[in-house]
C-alpha cells in the first residue's frame, strides 16, 4: 500500500517535472533552439591548402581532417551578467567532415535564458578543471569524444582538436605531412578560451532562433596576424619532439581563427528535434544525441 502511494506520488512528480521543463523551453512542443552558431570554414575536407615548412618552402597539402571540441560555453548579457551553459547541453564537436556544401557546421544552442547578449565565449577543448570535476557533468563530453577525440591512455582523455593533411608532392620519398592532435598531455596545457564580441546585440526570445555567422580561418593557425601577437608555425614541426615553440604557438593561434560576422536576428523559431531529423545525415556527430 505504501509502495502504491509512493508510485502515485512519483507519477505526479514525473508529470509535473515533465510539464515544467516543457514550459520553460518549448516553442510549442519540443526543444526551442535559442540560437544557432554557424561556423563557416575557410576550407572543405579534400581541399588543397598551402603551408610553409621549416625550410621556408611552400608545400601543397590535402586537408583530411579538421575538428575541435567546444565546452564551457558562456554568454554575456548586455548588463554584463555571465550565463554559463552546462556542458551536458552546450558542449559540441565541430567536425569539418560534417559540413554542408558551404563548409558550414551548425551548432544549436538551447536553454539560453531570454534576453539580450553582447558576447560569447567557449573553451577549445576541455579544461583540466572540468576533466577532473564532476563525472556526471562530462556525460555529453565523453560521448562526443569517444569516436575519434579520445586518448584512452592519457590522464586527460580528451583530444581538443585535430588537423591532418597529406602532402601532394609525390616526388620526394618522404613528403612532409601535417598532423597535430592537441590536448593536455605530458604536463603541456593546451586549453584556450575564445572570446567573441557580437557586432550587434543578440536577442534571444521564444519567437525566434537567431543565427550567428562565424568564420573559421584555418590558415591563421599557421600564419596568424603577427601584429597582434601571433607567431608563424612551420607545419612540419608539429608532432615532433616535446612541447616545442611551434606547438605552443600553434595552440595559441586557435584564439585567432574565429571571427564573428553578422547576426540574422529574426530567423523563425526552430525546434531542435526537427533540425536533428533534417541534419541527421550531415551532422551526425554535432547534433544533440538523445
Amino acid at each position, binding site marked *: 500500500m505504501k*509502495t502504491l502511494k*509512493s*508510485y502515485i*506520488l*512519483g*507519477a*505526479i*512528480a*514525473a508529470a*509535473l*517535472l515533465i510539464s*515544467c521543463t516543457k514550459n520553460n523551453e518549448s516553442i510549442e512542443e519540443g526543444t526551442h533552439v535559442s540560437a544557432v552558431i554557424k561556423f563557416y570554414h575557410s576550407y572543405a575536407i579534400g581541399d588543397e591548402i598551402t603551408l610553409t615548412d621549416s625550410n621556408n618552402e611552400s608545400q601543397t597539402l590535402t586537408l583530411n581532417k579538421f575538428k575541435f571540441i567546444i565546452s564551457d560555453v558562456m554568454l554575456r548579457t548586455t548588463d554584463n551578467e555571465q550565463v554559463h551553459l552546462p556542458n551536458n547541453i552546450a558542449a559540441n564537436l565541430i567536425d569539418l567532415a560534417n559540413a554542408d556544401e558551404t563548409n558550414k557546421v551548425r551548432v544549436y544552442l538551447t536553454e539560453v535564458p531570454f534576453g539580450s547578449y553582447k558576447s560569447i565565449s567557449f573553451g577549445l577543448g576541455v579544461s583540466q578543471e572540468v576533466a*577532473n570535476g*564532476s*563525472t*556526471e557533468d*562530462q*556525460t555529453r563530453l*565523453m*560521448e562526443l569524444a*569517444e*569516436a575519434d577525440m*579520445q*586518448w*584512452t*591512455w*592519457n*590522464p586527460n*582523455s580528451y583530444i581538443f582538436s585535430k588537423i591532418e593533411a597529406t602532402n601532394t608532392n609525390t616526388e620526394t620519398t618522404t613528403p612532409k605531412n601535417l*598532423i597535430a*592532435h592537441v*590536448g593536455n*598531455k*605530458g*604536463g*603541456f596545457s593546451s586549453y584556450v578560451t575564445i572570446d567573441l564580441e557580437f557586432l550587434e546585440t543578440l536577442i534571444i526570445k521564444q519567437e525566434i532562433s537567431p543565427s550567428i555567422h562565424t568564420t573559421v580561418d584555418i590558415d591563421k593557425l599557421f600564419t596568424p596576424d603577427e601584429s597582434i601577437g601571433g607567431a608563424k608555425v612551420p607545419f612540419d614541426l608539429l*608532432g*615532433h*619532439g*616535446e*612541447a616545442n615553440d611551434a*606547438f605552443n604557438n600553434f595552440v595559441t593561434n586557435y584564439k585567432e581563427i574565429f571571427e564573428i560576422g553578422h547576426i540574422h536576428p529574426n530567423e523563425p523559431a526552430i525546434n531542435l528535434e526537427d533540425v536533428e531529423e533534417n541534419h541527421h545525415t550531415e551532422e551526425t556527430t554535432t547534433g544533440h544525441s*538523445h
Partner: protein
Amino acid sequence: MKYSKIIYILFIVFVSCSQNSDEYSAFEIKFHQPVNFPSPTFDLEDNPITTEGFELGRKLFYDNRLSLNNEINCGECHNQSHAFTHHGHDLSEGVHPGVFGTRNSQPIQNMAYMNDFTWDGAKDKLFDQPLIPITEPVEMDETMENVLVKLKKDSEYQQRFQSVFKTEDAITSVNLLKALSKFMGAMVSSNSKYDKYVRGEEGGTFTEEEKKGLALFQQKCATCHNGTLFTNQEFINNGIGENPSLPNETGRARISSSNPFATVEELKTSDDYYKFKVPSLRNVEKTYPYMHDGRMILLSTVLDFYDTDTYPLMTKMKNLDERLIQTNQKEETLGIPMTEDEKVAIITFLKTLTDYEFLNDSRFAKPE
C-alpha cells in the same frame, strides 16, 4: 520553478521506493575505511558506493558484452583467487587468438587509495581506467558506443542503471564507468595476517621468522614499498632491462611525453624511459608472475634480482633509481645487499600480506 523543490523530493521518494536491494543482495556494501589505511583518493562524493551500484558494477565486470563479439569479461584476466590477476600468465591474450598485451595483469585491490593506475600511470583516476581494457585492440577491442548499444537492449540493465543513477536513459559511458568504479572501489584488501598484527587483532600473531622478515623488509624494501599500501606510488626505473620481444615498450615515457606521436627512439631519451609504477605488495604471494612484463615467476627470483650479487642482475640505464645504487669507496654496486637467509625471512614475511578474506570474499565473485 517554484515547484522544483517539491518535485525533487517527490522524485527522490519515487526513485528510492522503486529500488529494492533485498531483491538482489543478501549483504550491504558501503565504503569501509580500515583504521590502518590512509585517506582514499576515490571521489566518494562524485561517485558514492552503494550496494546496488556495487552490484551493477560487478555485473558489468563479469559481463562478456564489454568485449568485441562478447568473447571475454574483465574477470578473464583478473581472477579473484589470484588477487584479481591472471593466474600465472606473464602476458594475456585478448579477444583475438594469439594476440597478447604487453604488460602483466595487475591486481585489482585497494584501488580507492591509488593516485595512478596501470604500470605507467596512463590514468590518474579509477573512473576512466576501464576505457583502456575495453578499447585496446590487444585486450577487449570494443568501442564504448557498441557496449552501450548491447547493454541498452537488456531490460534488466535499463532498470538497474536507472535505479542506481536515478535518471532516465541512464545507460551512458559515464555511468557505465562509474558503476565499474563502484565495484572496484569497494574491493579493499585489509585483512591479511599483517593487518591483524598491526591492529593487534586475533589471528595477528607473528612467528619469530615473520618478525625477522618484517624488520628486514622495513630496512631493505620499504623505501619504495612503503606504508600500508606497500608502495610509495612512484614511477621508477628499477633496473629491469629491456625486453627484446617487446621493442615498443617505453614505460612511463609515453605518458609523460607531450607529443602523442613520439617514436620509441625519441622516448628512449626521456628521463621516464622504462619507469614503471612501484607495485603494491599486498597478496604478492598470489600475484605471480612479477614485474611489468611478468618475466619472473618466483618471489625468490625477484629477490635475487634486487640482491647485489645473484642472477638475474640489474641493468643500469641512465635513470636507474639512485636508491638501488650503493657506492663504497668509489666502487658502485647495483641492488640491495641481502643474504640468502635474509631473503628467506623476507619471503616468509611477504606471505603474511596474503588476505584470504579478500581472496574468498563471495561479494567480489561472479554471481551464480
